[in-house]
């Protein structure tokens, strides 16, 4: 005790204040370390949650595909494919007819006169349409039988679920009262299969019918219509050839084939259809959404990359300090605009503006103008560019700023102009930083939701890339948009619900990859400086 009251300098050092066994330093360390820990844990939880919710999807999807096959609906779908090809042909013929009527009206014929003129083509049209009837009826009948079987199967499934829950809650009597039948798909399918000879006969008649009728295609004096009818003939002959292929597929189809889990996986990743709440079969294919997302992102990057990098070069290398102080905060302010406001602007102003501009006579030479949809990939992409510009600008400007001033001086001292210095020294030196800025901008665009949901048009179909550059004016749906749109309305735990989680997981992986590569490139950039 006595010794302790003697305060030496040595003792003072041991007397640090502590609270709950923590000194101030360790408390601070704990605080900041805790913050870092919490963010890592949250990230981990999000990943886990996504995986957990998404993981059940493939099993469910496989079951669904298996049901689709076992019930024989897949078989009907094959025949329906043929039917659809035939109706496409009919539609084409119809478009020729309506064009003819249109032309006659333009030339000043009245209704009666044009009726008389079109009589011949009219007859041909009806004859052709009649050819399609037997096939259509065959498909409808087969579909009715098989979907009735599928529906009662699902009903029985529900009943047995119900029974299980009754048994669990101990209500034996009620459970026993439920009448549960076994549905044997084979019985129903055999009925349909037994009528296969009819199908073959229908096809024979169809081919014969088309071949008979084809020489009597009406003749139009008009060059445009004549070209179209020639095209129609070609298409009809192509269809005749295809019939045997359709038939082959239908006959070769086997009900007993099982569905491996990999098939569920590939039909999700490479599936070309996203159809929900269908009476026949739900399809969860990623391609329409992914291609939509990337199309929108490409449009956005097309604008954002040159603008963002150009602005960064200007601000960093050319602008006077007064300009820099003005421009920089302005561009960075764009990222503070809520995305829903930008989407609002897109619907109210930008989309309408684009459609109006596309209607200008002076732009009529562009073959996909005027556009029909106000909300399309271009509208969304243009607005997303606005959101990517601040990201690209800020990061690219940082990269340019990291180029040592001495490089610029050395280049200028050798008599190069400012432009030469920028293009030959500054930009190449900062290139990897600029590339990673672009990548991160791309990540920002791919992950953006509100603007695409409001402005992309939300049509779930693969954009027709074959049409060339005009594809950007098609309405599309995106991975982010579909989650935002559908997740609120699906049944918790259903296949649809899990499919949306899988889409989320894919998005997560994409942005993870983008960030990873951006980091890699930045690291390479730092090393090359060495």
């Amino acid at each position, binding site marked *: 005790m006595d010794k302790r009251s003697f305060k030496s300098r040595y003792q003072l050092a041991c007397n640090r204040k502590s609270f709950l066994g923590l000194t101030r330093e360790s408390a601070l360390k704990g605080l900041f370390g805790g913050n870092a820990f919490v963010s890592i844990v949250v990230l981990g939880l999000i990943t886990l949650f996504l995986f957990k919710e998404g993981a059940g999807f493939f099993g469910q999807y496989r079951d669904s595909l298996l049901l689709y096959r076992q019930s024989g609906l897949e078989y009907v779908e094959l025949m329906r494919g043929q039917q659809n090809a035939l109706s496409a042909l009919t539609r084409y013929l119809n478009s020729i007819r309506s064009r003819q009527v249109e032309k006659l009206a333009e030339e000043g014929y009245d209704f009666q006169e044009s009726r008389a003129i079109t009589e011949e083509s009219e007859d041909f049209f009806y004859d052709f349409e009649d050819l399609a009837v037997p096939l259509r009826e065959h498909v409808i009948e087969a579909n009715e039988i098989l979907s009735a079987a599928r529906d009662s199967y699902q009903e029985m499934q529900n009943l047995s679920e119900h029974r299980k829950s009754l048994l669990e809650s101990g209500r034996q009597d009620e459970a026993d009262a439920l009448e549960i039948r076994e549905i044997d798909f084979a019985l129903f399918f055999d009925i349909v299969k037994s009528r296969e000879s009819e199908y073959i006969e229908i096809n024979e008649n169809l081919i014969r019918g088309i071949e008979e009728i084809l020489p009597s295609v009406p003749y139009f004096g008009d060059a445009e219509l004549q070209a179209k009818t020639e095209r129609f003939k070609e298409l009809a002959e192509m269809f005749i050839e295809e019939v045997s292929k359709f038939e082959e597929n239908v006959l070769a189809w086997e009900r007993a084939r099982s569905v491996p889990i990999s098939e569920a996986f590939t039909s999700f990743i490479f599936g070309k259809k996203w159809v929900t709440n269908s009476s026949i079969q739900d399809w969860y294919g990623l391609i329409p959404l992914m291609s939509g997302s990337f199309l929108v992102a490409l449009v956005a990057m097309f604008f954002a990359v040159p603008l963002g990098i150009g602005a960064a070069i200007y601000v960093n290398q050319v602008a006077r300090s007064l300009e820099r102080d003005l421009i920089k905060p302005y561009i960075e302010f764009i990222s503070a605009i809520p995305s829903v406001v930008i989407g609002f602007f897109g619907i109210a102003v930008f989309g309408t503006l684009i459609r109006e501009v596309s209607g200008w006579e002076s732009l009529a030479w562009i073959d996909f103008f005027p556009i029909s949809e106000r909300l399309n990939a271009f509208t969304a992409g243009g607005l997303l560019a606005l959101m990517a510009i601040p990201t690209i600008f800020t990061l690219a400007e940082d990269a340019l700023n990291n180029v040592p001033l*001495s490089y610029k001086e*050395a*280049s200028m*001292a*050798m*008599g190069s*102009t400012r432009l030469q210095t920028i293009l030959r020294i500054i930009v190449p030196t900062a290139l990897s930083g600029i590339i990673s800025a672009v990548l991160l901008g791309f990540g920002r665009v791919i992950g953006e939701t509100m603007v695409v949901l409001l402005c992309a048009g939300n049509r779930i179909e693969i954009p027709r890339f074959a049409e060339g550059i005009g594809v950007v004016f098609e309405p599309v749906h995106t991975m982010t948009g579909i989650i935002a749109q559908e997740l609120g309305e699906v049944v918790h735990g259903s296949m649809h619900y899990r499919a949306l989680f899988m889409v989320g997981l894919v998005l997560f992986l994409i942005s993870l990859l983008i960030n990873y590569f951006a980091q890699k490139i930045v690291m390479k950039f730092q090393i090359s400086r060495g």
Partner: protein
Amino acid sequence: MSLVSLRLQKEIKMDTPAVDSQRVDRNRPLIRISDFDFSYGDKQALFDINMDIAEHKVTAFIGPSGCGKSTLLRCLNRMNDLIESARINRGKVEVNGVDIYDERVDATELRKRIGMVFQKSNPFPKSIYENVIYGLRIQGIKKKSQLDETVERCLKGAALWEEVKDRLDTSGLSLSGGQQQRLCIARAMAVGPEVLLMDEPCSALDPVATAKIEELIHELKNDYTIVIVTHNMQQAARVSDQTAFFYMGNLIEMNATDQIFMSPDKEQTEAYISGRFG
């Protein structure tokens, strides 16, 4: 290119000693600075500088930090144009009788004539070969034979050829500090300047590398007019023919180097040289 810069170019070419070395008066000033006031924003950096820099001599600028010697050096090839707030208040700088701050003079053309080597070696992150020919590339010269010839000539001129001839395609940044600085000198020579401005070229180098650069300066004197800024007074004494002493933005004294170091006219100069301040 403006008329004046054409004239400037022509005059410099006509007076190039390689063409007609017999006739040239070796003491005639190539650069004349008269009544020169210069400021960064509100802060005046140079006061009333008057100075002649002779052709084919080495001129050293000495003085304590912040005395304006580097600023004046950068005024000679208009590198201060890059600084937004830089302003000339009075006076002019003439090269061969042409005022280089005349608005008709093309600064890039001027800088091709007056090359510069910086305090910190700053090769570009490109190959050694590309570093040397950068000045030719920006002039649009693509002929391989001419580029090869220039690389060899300039690297030999900068006493670097033997060390790097086998690895011309490696990065300029892979060289040692002294080699990098000589690469920068070679790079400046490739453009074909008449004047080389050196801003403390040895301050970041070890004594061996410094000795090599100093030796190089001696040799370069035959072909170039050299202006060197240095903190190292022994270096100024070793390499220069004439020396200018600056203090607080003023030119205190300028004279032949021997004169300055043996018997300076001004007391301040003597105090600085003998190490009593600065």
